């Protein structure tokens, strides 16, 4: 943006630098033209990098940073959906309100448990899958694409299908359980079953994706590491433990961070898992996440100030998680 002032720059002194003053006007004009070109050239070298990166940063400022900061500001005010521009300063009251609300703590706990139930098995399975995909396989592309199909499916579509599969009376999963002699489970209304069901949507959508990421990292491990381990008599399992896992450490950390952030934001799956209860996340809020709680406070109860306080609380939690992650990864690096 700031670069296009080539024309605005005054054609100042530099013109008569080296060639002295040749008598012919044509030569002087030529020298001036060249000097102007080289000035423009330098300006181009100097400023065009900023021009290339500035659109991203301007967009980020407008739709990323500003809203985030403004959320913090709004969280100290009473703001209602009916008149979003009327803001009354209330200090920390929105925060004390939500910290006094049992449903906030309920949502925080649900977010944590759904996060664990969905992330841990997902990443473990992804690791196993990646290990298998790393063998020489027939039709290897087919498996990879097939496992990525859930990633192509939207949250909305996936959730609606899983609601049916998890149906209490006619769902396929209860039918399958019944055929092996397990009594039907009320996947929607019982606390843990509903959280498992919601988590399974997340697991289904993301396992293949994470497997591909692990696979890519595994393929980058130099083959000679395995060969020398094999020469030392390491079994396949020992090779996996002592060669594969340590080499994957940065990738594992990356997926854990990304999954943690994702898990803290879960919204669509629980919203649609009981579409009629919507924002409350089940009849007894049994699978209401923080994302849903934010939506309920802001868009159902119309308290935008309080919703902002929830958003900022989530942001602070993420920062804490980020710091913890950073410390752990440094420890790990130092110990290896």
């Amino acid at each position, binding site marked *: 943006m700031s670069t296009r002032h080539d024309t605005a720059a005054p054609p100042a002194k530099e013109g008569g630098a080296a060639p002295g003053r040749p008598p012919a006007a044509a030569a002087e004009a030529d020298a001036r033209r060249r000097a102007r070109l080289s000035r423009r050239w330098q300006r181009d070298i100097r400023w065009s990098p900023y021009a290339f990166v500035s659109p991203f940063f301007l967009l980020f400022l407008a739709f990323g940073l500003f*809203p985030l900061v403004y959320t913090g500001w709004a969280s100290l005010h009473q703001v209602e959906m009916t008149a979003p521009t009327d803001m009354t300063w209330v200090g920390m009251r929105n925060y004390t309100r939500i910290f006094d609300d049992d449903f906030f703590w309920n949502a925080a706990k649900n977010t944590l448990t759904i996060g664990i139930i969905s992330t841990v098995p997902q990443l473990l399975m992804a690791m196993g899958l990646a290990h298998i995909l790393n063998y020489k396989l027939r039709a290897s592309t087919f498996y990879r694409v097939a496992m990525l199909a859930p990633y192509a499916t939207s949250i909305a579509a996936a959730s609606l299908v899983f609601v049916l599969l998890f149906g209490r009376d006619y769902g396929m999963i209860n039918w399958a359980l019944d055929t092996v002699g397990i009594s039907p489970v009320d996947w929607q209304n019982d606390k843990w079953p509903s959280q498992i069901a919601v988590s399974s949507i997340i697991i289904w959508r993301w396992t293949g994706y994470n497997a591909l990421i692990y696979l*890519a990292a595994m393929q980058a491990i130099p083959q000679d590491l395995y060969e020398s381990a094999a020469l030392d008599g390491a079994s396949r399992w020992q090779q996996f433990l002592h060669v594969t896992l340590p080499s994957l450490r940065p990738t594992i950390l990356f997926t854990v961070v990304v999954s943690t952030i994702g898990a803290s934001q879960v919204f669509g799956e629980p919203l649609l898992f009981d579409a009629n209860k919507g924002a409350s996340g089940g009849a007894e809020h049994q699978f209401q996440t923080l994302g849903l709680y934010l939506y309920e406070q802001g868009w159902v109860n119309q308290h935008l100030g309080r919703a902002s306080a929830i958003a900022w609380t989530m942001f602070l939690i993420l920062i804490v998680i980020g710091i913890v992650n950073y410390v752990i990864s440094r420890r790990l690096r130092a110990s290896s």
Partner: protein
Amino acid sequence: MTTTTVTKSEPQDTVPAARRVRRPKSERAGGQLHAGPIAYVILAVFTLGSLFPLVWTAIAASRDNNRLAQTPPPFWFGSNLFKNLDIAWNDANLGKAFVNTTIVAGTSAATIVFLSTIAGFAFAKLRFRGRGAAMLIVIGTMMVPPQLSIIPLYMMVAKLEWTDQLQAVILPSLVSAFGVFFMRQYLIQALPDEIIEAARVDGASSWRVVWHVVFPTARPAMAVLGMLMFVQTWNDFLWPFLVLSQTGNPTVQVAVAGLGRGYTPDQSLIMAGALLGTLPLLLVFAIFGKQIVGGIMQGAVKG
């Protein structure tokens, strides 16, 4: 002579991305173990698990509501598929939703690819003050989920009276730190410095370098990034759900989500809608699956 050989071998040795791309075929083929039968069994189970819900969506969409309220659930296709698709298409406003989503995802993906390529080029190949700090900010923004910003964005949209208008969805979706990072990683290894130097010596301005050197080199990565961004925007749910209405000007996800509401929902119609909303992307994956897999594997592994 020596200088050229040194610089030519450099990208292969120092850049992990290049290594990853090249190694599997050449070195692995000999050393890599063949998978045993157990591996194939496990793979078959996971493939089935990945595809079954999608296939079953189609099965359920081809039945009627009564059949879905019986045990055992249907395992094979019925005869109502096209009837249900037709009704869902009209009920859920899907025609309009498809046009809208194509506009949103197309505009967003194209803009992100363009902006990410020039920014990624600057970060990969140009020297400027503050480059390291700016790149750190880009990586930092990847860690901040956009959902935390929805309240002020919503207030902006309300104030500008953009509710139910597509630009309300498009504009916030244009910020993609991932895209910048992705293109940077690609250009570092794919674009040799000598070519830029040569273009410079010929008197090309930075913009001409971008147009005649960077874009042609980056084309494969741009295509992959475009597909990834298209998929992501196509599937975006929370923000469109907040600012667009199902009956007015929905995207596909908003329209499909609206099918699930109501106390006696017709399940076969819901499945028909879900199928319609998913089908276009599944087609894209069926055709370009290999490239998308390659792109994810190439772009996502940086810790």
